[in-house]
């Protein structure tokens, strides 16, 4: 058996209670071609340095917890294989465009507020009334929004988006795609109130269609496409309201 191969991980470290500023710390980890970056970080946490702090859960691209910058690119670390970087060192940093709480952990507060703002749930007055049976949908009605419902809130798209980094009012790719997802759901009646949020200020208009959100999305949601579709809906609404100033507010999907 050959001598054990290793590779280097350079990890962003910051403990706000003791560090005046962030620093990088290098760790040698065993190289295994089946390992992903998250395996290596977990190995460091278990065997070398228990103070290293990071988020993770499922290890299989479902939970959306382990998003980090890997050599400058936003990645799910559970899906970033060491063999794609070996033998060069791998630099691991917290997702950019978010405040760092500790080491590789970022604050989710701003993201959660934006997610809540688009009312990502079905809105209708008779939501509790099941007397008429289920709300049935045809395969075509499901197909209208299914792609946009695959988001796992991993926030890679926010780290990839140049607008999300400098425009606070911008709701960002995941939240807008999710709002669009409910606007396209045949069971939903909340489109008008959702659009009031999505079309205010820079909420959606901050997007200049860079498209990186779609490029980095691990679930192929295509938030950039969702945002452009939502802008087209907004333009139609604008001219419809202009043509019919009264009584146009409650038009459904």
């Amino acid at each position, binding site marked *: 058996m050959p001598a054990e191969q290793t590779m280097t991980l350079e990890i962003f470290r910051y403990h706000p209670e003791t560090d005046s500023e962030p620093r990088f710390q290098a760790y040698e980890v065993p190289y295994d071609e089946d390992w992903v970056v998250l395996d290596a970080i977990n190995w460091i946490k278990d065997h070398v340095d228990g103070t290293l702090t990071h988020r993770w859960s499922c290890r299989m691209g479902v939970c959306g917890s382990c998003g980090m910058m890997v050599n400058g690119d936003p990645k799910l670390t559970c899906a970033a294989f060491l063999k794609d970087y070996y033998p060069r060192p791998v630099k691991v940093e917290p997702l950019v465009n978010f405040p760092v709480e500790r080491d590789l952990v970022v604050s989710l507060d701003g993201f959660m507020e934006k997610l809540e703002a688009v009312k990502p749930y079905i809105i209708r007055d008779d939501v509790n009334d099941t007397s008429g049976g289920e709300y049935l949908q045809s395969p075509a009605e499901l197909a209208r929004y299914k792609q946009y419902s695959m988001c796992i809130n991993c926030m890679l798209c926010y780290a990839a988006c140049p607008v999300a980094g*400098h425009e606070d009012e911008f709701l960002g790719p995941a939240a807008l795609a999710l709002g669009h997802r409910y606007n396209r759901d045949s069971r939903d009646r909340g489109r008008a109130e959702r659009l*009031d949020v999505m*079309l205010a*200020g820079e909420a959606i*208009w901050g997007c*200049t269609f860079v498209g990186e959100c779609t490029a980095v999305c691990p679930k192929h949601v295509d938030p950039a496409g969702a945002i452009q579709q939502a*802008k087209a809906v907004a333009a139609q*609404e*604008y*001219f419809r309201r202009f043509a019919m100033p009264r009584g146009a507010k409650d038009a459904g999907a």
Partner: protein
Amino acid sequence: MKRSSEAFWWALFSAGGVMAALFVPAFVIVTGFLLPSGDAAAAAERAAGFAGVVGRWPVRVVLFGVIALSFFHCGHRIRHTLMDLGLRRFSGPLKLPCYGGALAGTVWAAMLLWAL
């Protein structure tokens, strides 16, 4: 929350992008390569025939749509590029030169097409 009027400008930008993408390459090929090709006399004859087609009213209307919307596409893109380059807080005042310029170009195009 008040909905932004950006939808209006984005609609012009979007329509202008479609027009530019569909028509401008064709214009370049026709006026830049096909019309001037061959010997000078044949090219002049083709150019005269082309001018006759352009003078027809339905063609003038289409040309006006392509030119005007392309101007607004350009103005909107310049405005947003300037915002991205650090002038975000001037997003309101930037509308005047960007969309005003597009409007001026539109009026100019209308006058030229009218006088054909």
